[in-house]
């Protein structure tokens, strides 16, 4: 006799429930061990039965009524519905995400085919252009030369190319979304739970089903993984930055008769730029944090070395590759911070 028999008998659903088969589905360990205590008849209500009252969960209700769906039937249902409409999803999503594949393949090829001296010179030049600091340029060159010295150059370049593409796309997509969020309270209410979910949902949860949608051999799989995780800071901080613009300045802009678009490009975005740049900085950091998970879904780069170190128990390999990721994070952080400082300096009051 199951605990919740009374529920179904009382509601008159016994006929619908059908005959209770002795093993409705796989027998659990608890049921098997219960066969040992065949003598104990459950006689009515007792204090003990209140204490050990089972929650009326799907499985518990199924024990009373075999027609009732179990939790495993529910998860199977989710799986079947996903497999059912994945083909139609594929038709829509494949062309949308194909550019991501091309960009990643192109970047990987470019960063890999360029000779090391050209690459390091180019990156040093970019650093100087962004930060106008000779010390920083020397530091960045030093780190890259060090990584090349310990035979990690190729892996570092693969990781760097993936990060560049993903961070670029995050900013390209994230800033407009953030701007849209800042203009509409309703959209913000909609987006915040979505952003929370993107940041906390374990990546593997949606990555394995994604393998059924896209092929795992395509770079877009790990590209999507990185972008979905790393886009959140830039969206949030753009929204925050624009909303934090001083209301008096907005009033002044209104007094001057600026249109919405003029206000956006002339007042709001320049004043929100520090926050936006902080968002970009955080996005780059979070992309780097995803490197190892991306390697779990076949992304090349330093993450592969970390995984090799973990699996083979070669602690040194894992530690050194991890250190390489940290160094890349440090140089990207310094460069974006220096660029941010220059942006701050140029937009601060007092230049006229």
């Amino acid at each position, binding site marked *: 006799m199951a605990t919740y028999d009374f529920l179904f008998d009382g509601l008159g659903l016994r006929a619908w429930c059908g005959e209770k088969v002795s093993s409705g589905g*796989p027998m659990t360990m608890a049921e098997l061990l219960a066969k040992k205590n065949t003598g104990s008849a459950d006689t009515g209500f007792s204090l003990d039965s209140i204490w050990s009252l089972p929650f009326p969960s799907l499985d518990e209700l199924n024990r009373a009524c075999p027609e009732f769906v179990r939790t495993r039937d529910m998860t199977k249902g989710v799986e079947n519905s996903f*497999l059912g409409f994945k083909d139609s999803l594929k038709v829509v999503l494949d062309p949308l995400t194909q550019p991501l594949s091309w960009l990643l393949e192109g970047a990987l090829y470019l960063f890999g085919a360029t000779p090391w001296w050209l690459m390091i010179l180019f990156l040093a030049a970019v650093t100087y252009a962004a930060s106008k600091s000779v010390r920083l340029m020397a530091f960045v060159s030093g780190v890259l030369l060090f990584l090349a010295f310990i035979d990690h150059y190729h892996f570092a370049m693969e990781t760097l190319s993936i990060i560049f593409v993903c961070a670029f796309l995050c900013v390209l997509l994230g800033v407009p979304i953030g701007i849209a969020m800042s203009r509409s309270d309703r959209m913000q209410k909609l987006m915040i739970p979505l952003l929370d979910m993107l940041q906390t949902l374990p990546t593997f949860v949606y990555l394995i089903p994604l*393998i059924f949608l896209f092929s795992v051999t395509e770079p877009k799989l790990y590209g999507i993984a990185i972008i979905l995780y790393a886009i959140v800071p830039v969206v949030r901080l753009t929204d925050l930055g624009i909303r934090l613009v001083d209301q008096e300045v907005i009033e002044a802009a209104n007094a001057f008769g600026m249109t919405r678009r003029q206000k956006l490009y002339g007042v709001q975005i320049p004043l929100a730029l520090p926050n936006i740049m902080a968002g970009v900085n955080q996005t780059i950091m979070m992309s780097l944090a995803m490197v190892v998970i991306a390697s779990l879904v076949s992304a090349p780069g330093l*993450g592969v070395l970390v995984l090799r170190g*973990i699996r083979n128990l070669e602690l040194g390999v894992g530690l050194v590759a991890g250190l390489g990721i940290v160094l890349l994070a440090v140089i990207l952080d310094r460069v974006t911070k220096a660029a941010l400082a220059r942006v701050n300096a140029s937009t601060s009051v007092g230049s006229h």
Partner: protein
Amino acid sequence: MKKLLFAIALGALALPGVARAECGKVSLAEMNWASASLITKVTEFLMVQGYGCEVTLVPSATTTAITSLAENNEPDVVPELWINSAPLYTKLEAEGKVKKATDVFSDGGTENWWVPDYLVKDHPELATIDGILANPALVGGKFHNCPDGWGCRIANDNLIKAFEFDKHGMEVFNHGSGETLSAAMASAYEAKEPFFGYMYGPTAVLGRYNMVAVDMGPYDADIHACNQTVDCATPGKSAYPAAPVLTVVTADFAERNPDVFDLVSKISFTSQGLSQLLAWQADNGASSEEAAVHFLTENKSTWEDWVNDAAREKLSAIFN
């Protein structure tokens, strides 16, 4: 008088402890894949219900288990250790720290390159490696390789060189993890797309989908031994042998608990039997515990030979 009664009371309290001391504490590794979890649950059940042991399950994986055995002499029992991925085992066995209890897969684990059965039905030449290399486009043009850090990655990389994949236009895709490899095989089969890659068994994915093992020619022990080392100068063509998969115990445990050591030395499954169990588990959405119960209720005659007489009596109370 009071003292006597007190002593008798204490003695009575100690009795259950004495009854328990027959087996004591056992730490049992539970690897993080389906077949190992099932075997562990069966072993745990027999130990607890038959021998009265206090079993602690230790979630584990191949590398972590062998390291733990090497450094900490723990856990006591490690079922389903794939020796190819844990070369440290041979050294530990030579040192006398660990002992092989048994081949937990009686016919060894299978390692193979696979193509789906619907491909072979339409193109019978794809059942051999030469046929595949002559028509790489028919199998999708890509070989799905093991992730870095698996023993099979080294062997596969050498075999790829030996079979000259590049000359035949066969690309190689190196997976990042075992999960993506199984998911790629599953998704290809579900969509009836071409697939060519490595998989080991018994696993749920091989039990669920009908894949055909590619004929790689005969097995040569010397060539394969060289293929399994990273710096093999002359990789050669050889099929995979059945992989040795053992249940390993620490030497200390074998000494202090000979009854349970005897039990563990007898627990063994055929590859086919285990694959069927795993397929049953997947079809019924069962947990490994439920699959273990299914095995125990359906195969009484098998496991009754594993346990000693005292345990058999205790267990018959449950399985009447």
